[in-house]
């Protein structure tokens, strides 16, 4: 989000909270979110990709809801929602380019109507052909993961760009991954998978289409989280009180703090934060350390600042988005770090990767040792988190770095629990150990960022070697 969009959303929130009658608030929030995902979508040189991608998000949302609804009927609210979404998409295709709500001139209205009708017909036919809801849910999860992989794997994204350019008569040699930059898809994917899995396990409460889609694309959290849980979101969504003074003060304060963190601190640190170019230009190891520290803090202030803005905007719209950061660099061990860094992502990974995997391993007839189970689950969970950021060897290594770190910490904790219990009688020593542990944890995480910040393994190894005097 840019400063302009934040200000626009802030003003919109004030108007929403003060003017919109209670019974319309849910609808306005949905409509605003639908418009916002088109407005925020970056332009693509391949028309009409920047119109298709947000539309595809809505289509995926409708499919997700259809598969997760408790019964087969289409209630009036959901039917109206479906109609509203369709009308909004058509209206945006007609007017979006004129009033600057779409990144580039959208496709022709008739084309959009025809495509929507075709897609709807296709989906209805598919629904009839695949009656097994459980299997369909699984297939849909697989489809989301396939889309995810296409967007995140360089060669696949490039191939998609080539294909799109060929179909639209664009210059082929200018194909780039950025042609198919699907804003917010990483988060949409996780929200979809969360609802689909919870439906499979019977945990998802019944949601109307309006509730489901608004949860999926709630615009303050659309581009970079936090990743809320549907049942928590819907509780706020069903209440939606107007804007009161506490909410206004808290919301605006969080937004201002977030703006300062992101646009002042993070953007300043970005000027000397580690990246591939500066890594190869740095002349000394101490210079590389400075670049790494700058990157570590830049990442924190950028991301946590963004979360503050999202949470602040959410507050203004009466949605209490979950916290995402809790002073992570002050934590004294890696487990506590991952309970305080991108909290909603690690929570999601715990629910949908760690816990099911560990249950599966522990339920096997020849189950591995407890330690091995923890190692496999920690490593797998962190590798999934790594791959979510990007499907490259560097992100796999980064995931393994943290997975093994978490495992080692667990082993260490198990062996030293008794000793640390005795430290309550020695507060100075305990404090000194805490400081040392926090420094060690910070540096463990910072060194892990080398894999995160740099694009390839060789450069990362080279940097790590030079950081330690090589």
């Amino acid at each position, binding site marked *: 989000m840019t400063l302009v969009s934040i200000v626009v959303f802030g003003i919109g929130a004030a108007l929403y909270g003060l003017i919109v009658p209670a019974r319309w608030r849910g609808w306005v929030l949905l409509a605003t979110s639908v418009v916002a995902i088109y407005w925020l979508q970056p332009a693509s040189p391949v028309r009409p990709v920047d119109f298709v991608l947000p539309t595809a998000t809505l289509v995926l949302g409708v499919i997700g809801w259809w598969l997760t609804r408790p019964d087969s009927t289409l209630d009036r609210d959901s039917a109206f929602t479906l109609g509203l979404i369709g009308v909004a998409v058509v209206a945006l295709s007609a007017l979006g380019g004129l009033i600057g709500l779409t990144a580039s001139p959208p496709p022709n209205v008739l084309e959009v109507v025809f495509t929507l009708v075709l897609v709807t017909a296709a989906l209805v036919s598919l629904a009839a052909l695949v009656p097994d809801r459980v299997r369909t849910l699984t297939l849909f999860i697989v489809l989301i993961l396939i889309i995810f992989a296409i967007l995140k794997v360089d060669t696949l994204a490039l191939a998609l760009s080539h294909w799109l350019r060929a179909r639209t008569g664009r210059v082929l040699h200018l194909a780039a991954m950025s042609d198919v930059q699907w804003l917010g898809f990483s988060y949409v994917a996780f929200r979809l998978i969360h609802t689909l899995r919870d439906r499979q396990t019977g945990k998802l409460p019944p949601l109307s289409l309006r509730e489901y889609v608004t949860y999926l694309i709630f615009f303050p959290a659309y581009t970079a989280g936090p990743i809320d849980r549907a049942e928590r979101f819907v509780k706020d969504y069903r209440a939606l009180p107007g804007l009161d003074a506490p909410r206004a003060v808290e919301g605006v304060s969080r937004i201002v703090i977030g703006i300062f963190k992101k646009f002042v601190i993070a953007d300043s640190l970005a000027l000397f934060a580690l990246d591939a170019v500066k890594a190869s230009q740095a*002349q000394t190891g101490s210079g590389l350390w400075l670049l790494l520290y700058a990157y570590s803090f830049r990442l924190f202030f950028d991301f946590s600042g963004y979360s503050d803005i999202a949470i602040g905007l959410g507050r203004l719209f009466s949605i209490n988005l979950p916290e995402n950061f809790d002073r992570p660099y002050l934590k004294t061990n890696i487990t506590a770090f991952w309970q305080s860094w991108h909290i909603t992502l690690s929570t999601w990974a715990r629910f949908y990767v760690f816990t099911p995997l560990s249950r599966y391993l522990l339920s096997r007839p020849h189950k591995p040792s407890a330690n091995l189970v923890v190692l496999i689950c920690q490593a797998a969970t962190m590798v999934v988190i790594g791959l979510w950021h990007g499907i490259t060897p560097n992100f796999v290594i980064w995931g393994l770095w943290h997975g093994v770190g978490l495992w080692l910490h667990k082993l260490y904790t198990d062996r030293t629990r008794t000793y640390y219990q005795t430290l309550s009688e020695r507060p100075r020593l305990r404090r000194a150990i805490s400081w040392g542990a926090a420094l060690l944890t910070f540096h463990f995480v910072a060194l892990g960022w080398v894999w995160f910040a740099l694009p390839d393994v060789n450069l990362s190894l080279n940097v790590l070697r030079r950081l330690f005097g090589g």
Partner: protein
Amino acid sequence: MAQWDWLVRPEAPYTWRFARNVVIKALILFVLLNALFALLNPSALVGRLSAYNVLLPGRDRLPYGENPDQSYNLSLNNLDAMFSAHQIAGTPKAADEYRVLLIGDSSVWGVLLKPDETLSAYLNAAQYRTASGQRVRIYNLGYPIQSLMKDVLLLQYAMRYQPDLVIWMVTLESFAPNQQLESMLVRANPDLAHRLIAAYHLKIDPSDPRFSVPSLLDRTIVGQRRPLADVLRLQLYGATWSITRIDQRYPKFYEPHMENFSENFGRDVTWQGFQPQPLTTDNLAFDVLEAGRGVVGSVPLIIINEPIFISSGVNSDVRYDFFYPRWAYDAYRQLLPAAQIIDLWNLISSDQFTDSAVHLTPAGSRQLAAKVGELMMQTANAAQQHR
């Protein structure tokens, strides 16, 4: 979450009145601070608050950059910030130091040259010592844009660093009347420029619209947000510069200087609005040159006409290079002896120029340094003898 308790668990519940009071107080504070800033004009103070020479090493040359993301450098017009970022500001003059300032245009600054390939770098590498044993230390204060007025502005500021000798590299283009206000540095420092114009009775019009005279609103924090941001960015880029020692973008390929001149351009004999005519000290900016002499006072000053590329290509009978038709440059050279300007115009061979008719290769720079070094030491030793 505990870290947000101060916000979400206030001592007294937030009210609309509280929110209104906060907004009003913030607005009042905002207006007051802006007004104070406009009245006090602390740009100089802000410029002197520098991380360079304190947390970071000073730069080898004045900050200048057109693509900051790649060069870790940027151009700004705050002289205090520029000089505070230079190593000269952090180098107290040692007792045995013979301090030399090198002033000039982009060729002196060192476009396409690394910091250790510039004229000043080669001069320093030679480790000259004066006859009395002082270590000669040369500081690169060159700055792009050819304008004597720009040079004098920088020179006047630089005199506070107690030079023992000033070397001033000039070329005909610097003397063009049109060029005097071509530099943003001059335009953005109208007070300093006006003072020079008044003190030395220069032929530059102080009411020229190109001078950027800020209004009251322009002098507020909001009005100065871009210059203030540039000062901050200069500090931040200083970290990257000190880590990488890169202060300029070095493209793999650049457009080389023009050797052959098309029929239209080649036969064009105008220069800076002048048709072929006698060039005199009156119709060129020799008054600004004299202002420069006035600024340095009794400090020895060497003025050198810098080498230029001399074409032997198409239409080279009319033009020496991209900048100069022959008639203009020849006429200019006639004025140099009387103005005590040492003429090195053809010192460097044609194959030692890069993207411009005045920008040298490292080898060309080294060759020039040998000659300039000779002249520098002659003048330095002579000056010390006379003391």
